[in-house]
């Protein structure tokens, strides 16, 4: 049960299955994923931004744009790994069908993990396109955001799959969003700088993967090289790999017992 992942290229077949379903609804899906963060970005960015002087040296909407890229990536990865993943694992029994073919559970979970991360990357990238059209992107350095959001997607896809592996029903996911995702969004410097928080809480922030994603993405969008790149990348990569492995162990316990 605790064995390290044994992966094969069949994971790609699982990824492609999800891609084919997504492709049928690609345009509504992208627009749907874009609408919610855009409403917050413009609503808060212009509404609240009008009341504020510059935040951390930039206009508030520009500050918020960087945070939105990260939070939107996190949300897209979480929704895919939780609701869609649970549908395929438990409701539609899609995984059961796949496991009867020469595909291992490790491959199925890896395919789902990579797919949720890819979809999250697309979600983050769509926001990048919009904010670049609005002139909030300073230099081509912004392209380095893409690998960062992919890694962020892997981290939250892995965490989401852990929750899916434990979930008895869809209702369970509410706890994850309310108790983890929402506080993480507020403590990771998406809406306001972490420095405005009390010192004790800043300590919590430094342990949150989303905070590390924001600390990489915000300077990159303003045309600066981020500080402490190895630290931030390590936290994201460690979250991604550890959560994937734990999700796999829990999935094996749930499905192969």
């Amino acid at each position: 049960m605790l064995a390290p992942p044994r992966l094969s290229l069949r994971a790609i077949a699982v990824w492609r299955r999800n891609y084919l379903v997504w492709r049928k609804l690609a345009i509504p899906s992208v627009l749907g994923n874009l609408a919610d963060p855009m409403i917050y970005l413009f609503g808060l960015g212009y509404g609240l931004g009008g009341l504020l002087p510059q935040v951390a040296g930039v206009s508030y909407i520009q500050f918020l744009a960087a945070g939105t890229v990260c939070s939107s990536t996190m949300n897209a990865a979480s929704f895919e790994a939780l609701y869609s993943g649970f549908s395929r694992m438990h409701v539609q029994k899609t995984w059961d069908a796949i496991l009867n073919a020469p595909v291992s559970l490790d491959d199925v979970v890896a395919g789902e993990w990579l797919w949720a991360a890819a979809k999250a990357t697309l979600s983050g990238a769509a926001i990048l396109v919009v904010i670049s059209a609005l002139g909030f992107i300073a230099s081509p350095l912004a392209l380095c955001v893409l690998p960062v959001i992919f890694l962020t997607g892997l981290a939250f896809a892995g965490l989401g799959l852990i929750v899916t592996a434990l979930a008895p029903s869809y209702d369970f996911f509410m706890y994850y969003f309310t108790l983890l995702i929402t506080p993480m969004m507020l403590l990771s410097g998406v809406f306001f700088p972490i420095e405005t928080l009390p010192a004790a809480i800043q300590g919590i922030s430094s342990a949150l993967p989303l905070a590390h994603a924001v600390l990489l993405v915000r300077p990159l969008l303003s045309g600066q090289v981020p500080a402490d790149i190895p630290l931030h990348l390590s936290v994201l990569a460690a979250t991604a790999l550890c959560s994937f492995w734990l999700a796999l162990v829990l999935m094996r316990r749930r499905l192969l017992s």
Partner: protein
Amino acid sequence: MAPLAQLEASMPAEVLSVSGLRKSYAGREVVAGVGFTLAAGQCYGLLGPNGAGKTTILRACLGLTSPAAGSIRLLGHPVPEQAREARTRVGVVPQFDNLDPDFTIAENLLVFGRYFGLADRQTRRRIPELLNFAGLSGKEKAKLATLSGGMKRRLTLARALVNDPDLLLLDEPTTGLDPQARHLIWERLKRLLAAGKTILLTTHFMDEAERLCHRLAILDEGKIIAEGTPQDLIAAEIEPQVVEVYGEDAPHWADSEGKTYARRLELSGETAFCYLQDGEVAALLTHLAGKPSMRRLHRPANLEDVFLKLTGRELRD
């Protein structure tokens, strides 16, 4: 007489062999030392009431659960160690429909082929043949939601054939289907047997097992309680003749006069099942001719009689 080597070559190879299989869930042993072998070209049936361990045995054969004890060899591979390799040559029809509702019929087959490492070009070439076999010709682009239960079962069968398997595992393939749909599935399964495929089937329909299976095992509480050809089991386990007597008076009759005519008699509601030797039938029928308040049906014993004798008439939920 044929030389030994030639005899051996013509002997069917073992497609699946299971021995000493044990598996417990939450302290309850659901498979308690099961063993059987499946020769190439054979249809082998696992029969048992609900909860007898049939599905667990199939899952173990596919390497999807690790048994507590026992050994399994599937198409030359030890399972679960090399289950993935073995599954390359196996097709599975699961008990519950798990077709992809987001895909058309053709996409269901195409995507499933990818799980076997088949190139799309290869699968596309096979799709018309597979759909023809499933009686779904021309429905490539049909959405899954438009299919009836019987059509979905046939598509699941076609999907199980996408890799041209040597062995098919069918878990209650006709549960929930109407008689027309069941007969069509049976006819298709016979065609697959004629084409040289090997089939392992679980069912609780005795007529299905009697029609399709060369050999079968009756399971109860995780153990095989009888094994053989359907004819051998009927001959060995039960009297050859059955007279069913029904009507309001049947229970009373069974308790009094019935016993003198049938050495073994079972009562279920208002029906008395009289199990008789060939020579005992005439006397009972003559006696019943004088009892117009009860209806009667005389028939040869079948597998269902064997099954009920061995596993009892109580409900298994």
